């Protein structure tokens, strides 16, 4: 196992993961708002926020897909050592990590079943930056309207059309996360 893979986990897992889980819940409940995520030092190219999300959400029972530019030995080892999550293809994944380009085409990911819409994938999309600008977001958890610099709109509109099925998305950059659940209506501006 690569030596760097053993570093950068939580130092106080119960508290850090509880705080991070709260931030992840808030982000998904209030689409388009930015929430800080800190406490991990994952190997490059992972952002701190993506690393914290993986430490918080993944374990041996949540298969993870690493998108192209993230499918590196050091990342594989880091995920395995700190979470035990099995690394799988896009189709089998409960979680997926990568840039938007890495994760394309997104119709490979699980959208759940009509009886079990919860059996859908959650994408963790690494972004160069995150800001409250760009496409217009409306729907549950948004008082009037929100904006977020999504990588595109068409894929998220197609995903919304599958509701109650569809994948959910976290967008991460540096030490911040924003959530975009399948229920959000996305419009280009």
């Amino acid at each position, binding site marked *: *196992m*690569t*030596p760097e893979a*053993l*570093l950068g*986990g939580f*130092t106080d*897992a119960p508290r850090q993961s509880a705080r991070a889980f709260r931030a992840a819940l808030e982000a998904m409940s209030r689409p388009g708002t930015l929430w800080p995520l800190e406490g991990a030092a994952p190997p490059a190219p992972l952002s701190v926020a993506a690393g914290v999300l993986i430490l918080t959400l993944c374990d041996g029972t949540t298969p993870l897909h690493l998108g192209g530019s993230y499918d590196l030995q050091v990342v594989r080892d880091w995920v395995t*050592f*700190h979470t035990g999550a099995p690394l799988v293809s896009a189709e089998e994944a409960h979680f997926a990590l990568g840039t938007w380009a890495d994760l394309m085409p997104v119709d490979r990911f699980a959208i759940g079943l009509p009886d079990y819409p919860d059996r859908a994938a959650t994408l963790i999309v690494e972004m160069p930056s995150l800001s409250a600008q760009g496409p217009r977001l409306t729907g549950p958890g948004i008082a009037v309207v929100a904006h977020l610099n999504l990588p595109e709109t068409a894929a998220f509109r197609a995903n919304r059309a599958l509701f109650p099925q569809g994948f959910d998305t976290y967008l991460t950059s540096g030490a911040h996360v924003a959530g975009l659940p399948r229920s959000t209506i996305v419009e280009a501006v």
Partner: protein
Amino acid sequence: MNALSIDTAARKAWMGLLARTAPARLAELMPDLPDHTVLRGPEVGAVMVCGRVGGTGQPFNLGEMTVTRCSVRLTSGAVGHAHVQGRDKAHALRAAVLDALLQTDDAATLEARILTPLRTAETAARSLRATKAAATKVEFFTLVRGEDK
């Protein structure tokens, strides 16, 4: 990352021995720990224990057991890991530090001072149980049956 000279079989053996050892006994033999950085844990969790159908067939889940795991790095750079039965975090930490130390030049000293007494005690306890079991072994005496004349 582990020096290739370290024999996997030997490492497996000492990791198993440290996992089975009573935490108090290990603490007695190794009261002080050298400087180290904790890489993961010590963390209490559960491991699902699997059996096999009929003892030889398909695996099935029998139930879980409590396990505490820990990984450390010494100032020398040696990395040690431990998975030990039960919920004793000090036990897991001590076993991980020892696993790292046993990969260094201190191995021979520690082998004599810690592993040998643990191994001797374990063998003695196992033998005692086996001898008590042997005392309950049935010796059949075939009785004379009607047709045996």
